[in-house]
């Protein structure tokens, strides 16, 4: 990726549809890839990518063409992904009867079974949206903290704090399901 030129960005802010198409074609893959990392659902990520560029198009007049396009688009994409997660989408938690209430904690087997995988994903799915996004990006995707901080619009310490809280809640959620990692 070479990055959009200032002239192209300026044309975009003036509403030039060809400049916007060129930007879209250059960045759609990156925006989609980022969203899918957060929501982990390719179908939802497609819809959110469309929505991201729709919002970008509508907000074009507010964009400063001297600034890079990628971080701006990623910030918008992240906000939309968080909205999506906070509406309760993502991994579906297991039904209550699937939870092994009262089962003694078993130490997690490193070769993750389907049952264990379901419990872990359910515990991740129970996290509040902001913590879930931070956990997915930091733990599952191993995205650098600086990159996460930039996309979420918070400090690196803020990301660390969210990941720390996510780990605590995950542990509690897994223990509730009889898993002690």
């Amino acid at each position, binding site marked *: 990726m070479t990055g959009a030129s200032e002239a192209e960005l300026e044309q975009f802010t003036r509403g030039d*549809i060809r400049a916007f*198409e060129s930007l*879209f*074609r250059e960045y*759609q*893959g990156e925006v*989609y*890839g980022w969203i*899918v*990392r957060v929501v*982990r659902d*390719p179908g939802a990520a*497609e819809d959110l*990518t*469309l929505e991201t*560029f*729709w919002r970008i*198009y509508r907000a074009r007049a507010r964009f400063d063409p001297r600034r890079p396009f990628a971080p701006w688009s990623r910030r918008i994409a992240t906000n939309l992904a968080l909205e999506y997660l906070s509406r309760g989408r993502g991994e579906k938690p297991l039904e209550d009867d699937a939870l092994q209430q009262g089962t003694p904690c078993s130490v*997690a087997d*490193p070769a*993750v079974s389907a049952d*264990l*995988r379901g419990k*872990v*994903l359910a515990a*991740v799915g129970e996290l509040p949206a902001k913590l879930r996004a931070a*956990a*997915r990006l930091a*733990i*599952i995707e*191993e995205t650098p903290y600086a990159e996460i901080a930039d996309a979420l619009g918070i400090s690196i310490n803020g990301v660390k704090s969210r990941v720390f809280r996510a*780990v605590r809640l*995950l*542990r509690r959620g*897994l223990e509730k399901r009889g*898993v002690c*990692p």
Partner: protein
Amino acid sequence: MNERDEALRELVKRAAAGPADRRLKRDLWPELLRRIERPPVRASWWDFALAAALLLCLLLFPETIPALLYQL
């Protein structure tokens, strides 16, 4: 980060690995273009006339407001 946290992170990473394919499989531009070119929904003079008539009715007959709210 202690060893237990490290073990938990490893478990989550293993459990969630896999399904997220990060490559976009289709071109989204035609869909976005259709959305951009769709004419914005505009209220006609008739919509404004109806709204004005309703407002006038409510001002003239305020006792109808609770009944109207009940129906909503």
